């Protein structure tokens, strides 16, 4: 059998049961049109049709088999299928199919800008109805997208990187609290600690730049190709932010903070007292460690280095003083 890797018999049957109704409704279809309609290649359709040719109502009895005009197929690349009226309608969605499509749309609704919600909801309502009353044809699957997953920006950047296109981005610069428009040649996306960065050549700054994706407010893929299509993305993880310098920090984690171990690259861990665990992390940014420790409070302690611990304590005191100014009673 001519099958593609990962293409199973049920896959092929599912394709045929969708293809035949389309062909029957049209009577005569060009092979290339059918391939384009189903987003596949002509070879696959042809292979599927050769299988169809072998099947029918009472296999073995000629005349009851489905007729595929092989001459027209091979000669003029035209598909004509006959004697298959009982396959005139596609099979309904299986629960897994209905669920994957419906949940994809529900997730899109949550992530979509206001003006696009209406059309997604209309589409969703039709599909939910096709899946069955009160969602009885659906499996239970729910996704609440994170801000980054819902970000309209990431897919645009990915597409531009894949196509080697330039991108125009609106970037928020916190230190100046302004949004600037920049023209960049994107090279790659990289996750460093818990942030996603875009590595790019910035035409506006005439320099290499790493942009925090959560600060890219808008992105538009342009038709223009990047200036240097061969440019490889830099390795963002190797301490690129601090010229290769990382610091080993040691944290003591109480049980509610142990998720850190599975979430970040921990280089070593040892059991600590009272059910705690001591872990070492290689970090590039002191600010990041400080934020992490504040978020973990009171379930984590910074054991080393000492000057990081002092800075952390100072930050907590400074923040508290803002509440003090505000009249919070500390007694």
């Amino acid at each position, binding site marked *: *059998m001519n099958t593609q890797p990962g293409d199973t018999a*049920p*896959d092929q*049957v*599912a394709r045929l*049961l*969708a293809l035949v109704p*389309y062909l029957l409704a049209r009577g005569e279809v060009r092979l290339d049109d059918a391939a384009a*309609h*189903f987003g596949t290649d002509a070879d696959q359709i042809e292979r599927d049709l050769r299988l169809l040719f*072998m*099947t*029918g*109502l009472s296999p073995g009895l000629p005349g009851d088999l489905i007729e595929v005009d092989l001459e027209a197929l091979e000669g003029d690349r035209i598909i004509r299928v006959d004697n298959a009226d009982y396959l005139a309608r*596609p*099979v*309904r*969605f*299986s629960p*897994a*199919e209905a*669920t*994957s*499509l419906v949940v994809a749309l529900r*997730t*899109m609704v949550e992530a979509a800008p206001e003006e*696009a919600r209406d*059309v997604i909801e209309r*589409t969703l309502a*039709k599909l939910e*109805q*096709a899946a069955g009353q009160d969602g009885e044809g659906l499996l*239970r699957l*729910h996704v*609440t997208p*994170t*801000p980054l*997953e819902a970000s309209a920006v990431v897919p645009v950047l990915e597409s531009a990187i894949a196509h080697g296109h330039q991108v125009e981005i609106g970037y928020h610069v*916190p230190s*100046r609290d302004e949004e600037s428009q920049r023209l960049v040649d994107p090279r790659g996306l990289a996750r460093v600690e818990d942030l996603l960065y875009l590595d790019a050549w910035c035409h506006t700054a005439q320099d290499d730049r790493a942009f925090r994706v959560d600060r890219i407010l808008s992105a538009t893929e342009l038709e223009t190709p990047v200036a240097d299509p061969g440019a490889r993305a830099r390795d963002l993880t190797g301490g690129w932010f601090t010229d290769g310098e990382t610091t080993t920090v040691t944290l*003591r984690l109480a*049980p509610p903070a142990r*998720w850190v171990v*599975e979430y970040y690259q921990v280089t070593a861990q040892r059991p600590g007292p009272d059910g705690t665990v001591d872990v070492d992390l290689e970090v590039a940014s002191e600010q990041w460690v*400080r*934020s992490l420790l*504040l978020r973990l*409070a*009171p379930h984590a*302690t910074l054991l080393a280095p000492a000057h990081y611990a002092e800075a*952390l*304590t100072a930050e*907590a*005191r*400074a923040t*508290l003083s*803002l509440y003090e100014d*505000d009249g*919070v009673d*500390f007694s």
Partner: protein
Amino acid sequence: MAQPRAERLMNLHILLLGAKRFIGKDAIREACYADHPRGAAGDEAFERAFERDKDALRQIGAVIEVGSADAFFDDEIGYRIPTEQTSLPEIRFESDEAAVLGLAAQVWQQATLARATTRALAKLKGQGVEIDPSRLGVVAPAITADDPAFEPLWDAVGKRRQVSFPYQRASETEPTTRRVQPWGLARSSGRWYVVGLDVDRGAERVFRLSRIVGPVRASGKSGAYDVPAGTDVRAVARRLSPSFPSVRAEVRVRQGTGVGLRRRAESVTPLEGLAGWDLVVVEGPVHDLSDEVLTYGTDVVVQAPESLRDEVVSRLRAVAEGPR
């Protein structure tokens, strides 16, 4: 040459589709399984193949009815696929709706779900729906499911089969084996959870997939249990996860900082009488908000509600006092 399985599946589907009466196993065997000879070995091979094929057709979406193949004796079991229940209802889509469908194909970054979406869309294309993702100026979110436990659990949810897996709770040093009837999966804050009945504890439980530290094993028959009617996996995951009801918070944010808070804020207004600060209104569970507020250090101060403010202050004090 043995008959390819796809050919046999097609013939089986066609044979059962729209049959007026239930077709007995023997007749099915004769029509579609001719290369399984009679006799013990062949019988067994036929039974196995037939079971697998029925399962495959159901996965494709066919509704297979089981009933008595004989009008007078009900000892012979037969099968049929009723045309109406098995056919996709006719759905018409406007062109902008068809564009939404095209985008939906890009959401799942997980092979099984992506494949199921593609199949569903192929059925709509079979109805003549023209799908074109390029016409809509919207981008689809991209949802991943990298946990190795996802695939077997999703499969078990679909088949309603009980599973067991080693689970590492954060508060325990050793993983324990849990036996669960999975009802569904939910993703929240970038993590996947499975919701179901913990068989040993006789109660509903939520498990985080990243804490399943070994293989997920399914056991027993398909359809072994029913999911309680009206089960909402998101609600169960929320209820059983350690979080708190949502509150509406007013926080002061230093201008040029707190991007994350600002982006999902209900409103952002400059604070009168306090130059350089904005008043930002956000919604969320108290604990999540206090986590987030804390990460910003001196750039964010909670004004209200008191519950959030108290939590942030007490956590800050724990850090300010330093290691004891």
